[in-house]
């Protein structure tokens, strides 16, 4: 069984995000970058599949040189090797362009299963896996909380509103991993040492078979016009110099009529 994981590097969940002066991106200095947490479930699941059935695991990432650090984390956890899609032409890719790049790798690698995170925690789009399945003509199962591989099929429990849905799909397929699927392991020190020697192959535009106009800013169908910070929280209301009972009445009234939360 060959399992391929599509991984994205995102800012740490605790990083304080500041919008860049031109309003088109974020200030990248002083940000700690991590593997998107949902992708950790995908990496862990890939390693577990290999541990159970033998085979090979590959991590694929689109991004600049800084993403290699997160790829090494995946390798330190136990993934066998990596493919780093890097080319100046890739800059500014939207989810569709990113999926095209990833699909070019997948077509060459021919995995049985492609695992992604449910969504990347920075842009929260959850689009690339669906595009990917479409481009490849493969089935896609979204938000997998339990996975069992049976021969040439996979039985997945999906998180849905109020419960779970059990589905079966043929392989190869694209799946996105949700919280609860597993508990990702920590990279051990021997793992970190071994990861240094594992191969990370570079994959540039020339290898993808795509045109320059398919990817990057040129290929993006959705253009980001700008970013806005969250508005400052409005100041709280303070009730003073009143009987407690009257204060409570006031608060209840405002919660009902103004905040509309009760």
């Amino acid at each position, binding site marked *: 069984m060959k399992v391929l994981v599509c991984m994205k590097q995102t800012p740490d969940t605790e990083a304080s995000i500041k919008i860049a002066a031109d309003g088109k991106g974020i200030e990248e200095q002083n940000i700690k970058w991590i593997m998107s947490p949902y992708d950790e479930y995908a990496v862990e699941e890939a390693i577990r599949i290999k541990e159970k059935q033998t085979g090979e695991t590959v991590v694929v990432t689109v991004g600049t040189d800084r993403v290699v650090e997160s790829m*090494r984390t995946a390798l*330190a956890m136990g993934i066998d090797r990596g493919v780093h899609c890097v080319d100046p032409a890739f800059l500014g890719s939207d989810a569709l362009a990113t999926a095209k790049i990833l699909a070019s790798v997948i077509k060459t690698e021919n995995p049985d299963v492609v695992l992604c995170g449910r969504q990347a925690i920075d842009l929260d789009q959850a689009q690339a896996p669906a595009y990917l399945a479409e481009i490849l003509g493969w089935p896609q199962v979204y938000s997998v909380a339990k996975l069992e591989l049976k021969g040439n099929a996979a039985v997945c429990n999906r998180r849905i509103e109020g419960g779970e849905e059990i589905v079966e799909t043929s392989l190869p397929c694209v799946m996105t991993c949700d919280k609860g699927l597993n508990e990702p*392991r*920590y*990279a*051990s*020190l*021997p793992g*970190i*040492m071994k990861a*240094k020697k594992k191969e990370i192959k570079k994959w540039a535009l020339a290898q993808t078979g795509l045109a320059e106009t398919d990817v990057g800013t040129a290929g993006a169908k959705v253009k980001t016009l700008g970013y806005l910070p969250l508005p400052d929280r409005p100041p709280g209301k303070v009730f003073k110099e009143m009987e407690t009972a009257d204060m409570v009445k006031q608060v209840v009234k405002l919660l009902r009529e103004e905040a509309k939360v009760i």
Partner: protein
Amino acid sequence: MYKAAIPKEILEFVDTVRKFVKKDCEPIDELIEQQGKIPEPVVQKVRDLGLYGMTIPTEYGGLGIGATGYCLVAKALSWGHGAFRSLIAVNNGIGSQAILLSGSEEQKQRFLPDLSSGKKLSCFCLTEPGAGSDAASMTTTAVKDGKFWVVNGLKHFITNAPIADVFTVLALSDKEKRTKGGITAFIIEKGTPGLKIGQLHQHMGSKAMVQSEVIFEDCRVPEENVIGKVGEGFRTAMKTLDIGRVTLAASCIGYAEKLLKMGSDYAKIRVQFGKPIADFQAIQWMLADCATEIYAADCMMIDAALRYDSGERQSALASMAKLYASEMACKVADRVLQIHGGMGYMVEAKVERYYRDLRLYRIVEGTSEIQRLVISRSVLKDELTF
């Protein structure tokens, strides 16, 4: 800046430990406090990460990241709960170092792999009711009888003794010679007839840190369990303490960092006289003093650890790092408690727990006074090189 001197993979590993602390340890610190122990699934993760054997070379199943790596991990673990240090420090320090520094190859092969993996726990039995700072005044005896040594005596305050499998024990093999060749170190395994756990000590710190008496009653120890040569135990014990002292400093620095964060967080949200107390200069200066002293201690600790790993042996450096960091952390705990006002005195703010736990570090593995003794001796003998 010192990061440049530390191998990248160690820094990456410390990052992993930080992640573990944030995800698995910090959220359960109150649970650990209530139950008086770390839940087994979390202990298993500590084993999986290899944290029991950081100072033990890889050929004996350890991580082999030296004093420096261990110090950085110890600092990170302090953000979780004091119980983590108590759990792993003995196997990494006083519980394994005697075997590592002076033991035979056969002893290393026999004991170190299980200590590295955390399959077995160790303890270090030096202190006695009548012999604390003056460890050489011990009365526990070891008398040769054929191929065995017969040990009799009582040790107390022994960390992890009730849960330990491998005991490093210092005993008098020659009453006349004492430190001059009369003290021998032994490995005594749990279950050896005559080895008993005495009373558990109740102390002011966290219940998740275990200490007890250890009693030896005609405890027969095979002669192959002597660590190093007969009569060289005291030197071994003193060498063993160096690495422990630097890492104690590292733990103190970790606690102080966490306390400073607690202090600054609280100062920003606590409003009095119409503004956050962080706006008062009195509070700002307390925070500034804490930060400055933490930085100073951190620089000392890292320097001492790096020099230890490079083979330099100056006990005074470890003593200075431990003395300064433990006294600094207690001052930080005191100031941060003060910043919290009455809330600092309450259990729910957690500051009081640090205040109590930290008090230990000015006593254990050599009191502040004994550290000063070690340092001043080195100064007076013109041996100290900065």
